[in-house]
């Protein structure tokens, strides 16, 4: 495959605090990647380094097999041929929509430029907005113009910095899907930075979860959810509970909810461990383990219950919106596992 961007052991620091502690990551041509993490994890800094706004302290950034960032040497942003969509859109308030879109292609002949602007306005479905000023547009419209502007010069890489964070929650996923379609249609390679996993899932092919300036896991959305690499990823992506497991004298793993089927490498792990139980790993089972309903969240099509086991440990259970149990009701449950995710428990603290 054709590698478009490669980060190798990138470190970035402000003064003496390292914000990015050695990130290695790459992106194939046409792929949409995502840096996902809580605020302050260093993801935006990394994005700005890729754009050329921040120098790196160690490692390297390559775009299309040529070096753009090395320690002490940073190619200027305007020479990288990247596009960027900013969190606040950063539309130029003194220019109308057409001039905003045309800003990056000022060197093209007038006719060609106008054609490109028109086709981008079509692409973002705002064909008549050309003569409006940014303040006359709604937030969603501004967002699409910002995207059109970034796409206009046909950048080899498009960077999106929390592009949906100022949108309504209902709009976000739809917009994210729309943007994904536009990018795929244009064949654009893109890297998205966000703290919202739904946005990431809706848009990206592969997602890197970042915490403390390090990539914790780099995978598809499905794998991040079902086989998280560590406790941070498990906690950050989706919902779930951790339940202690013990190894019996026959070497089987036993939890409070019964024996655990072991797949692959987990079998060899020793010591105290915990298993990750997603809400959909838990099923109602007659003759299973008896639990008490201690919390519930009605979510329309389904209901998420919090169940307390005899030991006092709690697990999550998701079921059909019609299965309405009152608090205090006793439910009998068991396990239905596709993946076994085990984490060692740190020695007594």
């Amino acid at each position: 495959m054709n590698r478009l961007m490669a980060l190798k052991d990138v470190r970035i620091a402000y003064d003496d605090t390292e914000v990015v502690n050695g990130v290695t990551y790459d992106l194939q041509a046409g792929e949409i990647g995502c840096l996902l993490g809580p605020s302050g994890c260093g993801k935006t800094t990394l994005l700005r380094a890729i754009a050329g706004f921040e120098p790196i302290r160690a490692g390297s950034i390559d775009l299309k097999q040529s070096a753009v960032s090395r320690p002490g040497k940073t190619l200027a942003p305007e020479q990288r041929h990247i596009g960027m969509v900013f969190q606040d859109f950063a539309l130029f308030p003194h220019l109308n929509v057409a001039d905003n879109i045309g800003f990056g292609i000022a060197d093209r002949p007038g006719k060609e430029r106008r054609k490109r602007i028109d086709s981008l306005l079509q692409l973002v479905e705002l064909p008549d907005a050309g003569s409006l000023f940014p303040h006359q547009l709604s937030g969603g419209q501004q967002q699409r113009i910002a995207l059109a502007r970034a796409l206009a010069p046909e950048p080899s890489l498009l960077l999106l910095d929390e592009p949906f964070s100022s949108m309504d929650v209902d709009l976000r996923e739809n917009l994210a899907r729309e943007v994904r379609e536009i990018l795929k249609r244009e064949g654009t390679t893109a890297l998205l930075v966000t703290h919202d996993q739904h946005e990431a899932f809706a848009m990206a092919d592969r997602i890197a979860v970042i915490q403390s300036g390090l990539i914790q896991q780099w995978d598809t959305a499905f794998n991040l959810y079902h086989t998280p690499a560590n406790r941070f990823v498990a906690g950050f992506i989706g919902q779930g509970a951790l339940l202690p497991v013990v190894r019996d004298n026959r070497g089987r793993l036993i939890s409070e909810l019964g024996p655990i089927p072991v797949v692959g490498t987990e079998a060899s792990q020793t010591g105290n461990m915990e298993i990750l139980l997603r809400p959909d790993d838990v099923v109602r089972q007659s003759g299973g383990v008896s639990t008490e309903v201690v919390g519930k969240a009605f979510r329309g099509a389904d209901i998420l219950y919090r169940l307390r086991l005899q030991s006092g440990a709690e697990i999550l259970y998701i079921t059909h919106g019609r299965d309405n149990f009152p608090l205090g009701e006793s439910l009998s449950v068991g396990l239905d596992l596709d993946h076994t995710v085990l984490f060692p428990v740190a020695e007594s603290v």
Partner: protein
Amino acid sequence: MEVATHRASDRTALHRPGFWQAGVLLSALVLALPVFTVFSFIFVPAGEVWSHLAETVLADYLSNSALLVLGVAFGVLLLGIPTAWVIAVYDFPGRRFFEWSLLLPLAIPAYIIAYTYTGLLDFAGPLQTGLRDSFGLEGGDYYFPEVRSLGGAVIMLSLVLYPYVFMLARSSFLGQSSSTLEAGRALGAGPLRVFLSIALPLARPAIVTGLSLALMETLADYGTVQYFGISTFTTGIFRTWFGLNDSAAAAQLAALLMSFVFILILLEHYSRRRQRFYQTGGRHRHPVHHPLRGWQRYAAFTICVIPLLFGFLVPAGQLLVWALSIAEEAIDMSFLQLAGNSLLLASAAALFTLMLALFLGYGQRLHPSKPVAIAVRFSAMGYAIPGTVIAVGVMLPFAWFDNTLDEWMRGTFDLSTGLLLSGTVFALLFSYAVRFLAVSLQSVESGLSKITPNMDDAARSLGLAPGKVLRRIHLPMMRGALLTAMLLVFVDVLKELPATLILRPFNFNTLAVRAYELASDERLADSSTAALSIVVVGIVPVILLSRAIRRSGETHE
């Protein structure tokens, strides 16, 4: 809940829109009185003098004033914008120092800088004499640019007026969302194009405001052009009034001058009627100042050091040399008295003008309407009018009021009230307010424009009356802008001469009056002590001003 609704409606009753609107309109009209007084002379016939003026000097007045304004516009932009940009965006040795020291030329009156440079560079000055002596030249053997020329006046005025552009441009650059500028970079624009096609257009309202302040002051300048022997509109007004003894024609010239200014202001407003310049603040503001390396550091340093050197260090140095070596005027107790008077007057005028500007600016925001807007624009035009004309414009209605009241009281109660307003400190403060309202108003208006209307609405919905919204929300938020307004007027009043000279009460002198008396008696060296004192007293607020701007810039983050 019910109680709250009740209280809110009580307040609405007290604060009907009419109260603010009428109050603002009335104050604006009172402040515009001197301007209207001058304009009223349009209707006095003065035909024959005009044909004389048109035949002989009017073309000169027009072309010299136009060239002066164009030249100073070019000069202040050239000195003010690059300095503002490098200081707002880059880091280089001395940046922190230049941040405040570039405002220092504000403390030097224009006519004083003209005197010092003439002293230095004139044919008989030390530089040319030294050149002639060392090369054995005679006058006429060599070319040396003449200080006392139109070009010289342009340079002198640019050197002391660029800080207006610098100050406003810098705070505008500082307030620009960094992501807007970065968006330009990401779209392939280099630093120069980002500056020219994004930062500069975005800062345009601020730059134009600074420019218009500088140009209005240029048009009002009398001391410099008079000393340089350049016939401008202003010298023409004086010549027509005092030389030809025709005050009506003089007032008509002044009215003509004001009309030009007014048309320019309207044109500028019209040209950006469709654009709006709010900015959503970007979050990524670090590092605000990109460090420069190598030759770029020296370039930035040079850009900043030139205006400081020629606008402040050279003239202040010359004053110091004169004061130490030649001046017969020593600093004594009478100087303390003068400095005290200057300080008192400047502080009171700064506060008074600020209160008025706040009232007008706020009222305009609360109830925007055409008549109010026009009245406020008119009242702020005093800045373009020579101080002497303002002073007469103030004296006329005040004396009329005093004498009419006196007449009536004598007739009705056989009691003379004498002069209640004329010749008082109040008349002086009022004329300062008329003259410098524009400076104060622009700071207040720009401060208010940064507060979104939602905040007003939020505060009103929480039960605050408009007056309280001002006090509890706006004043704390605008601290920087208000300080700027006060300090600018303070420094201006400190330097102000013509109105002070005419309107002051008995036995009341200021530093500017002392400096002027000696300088106009051609005792330039002797006047240096007083001139230097103005500079020294003016430096403190200039430094405070710079800190206020920096702090108000930081609150945006």
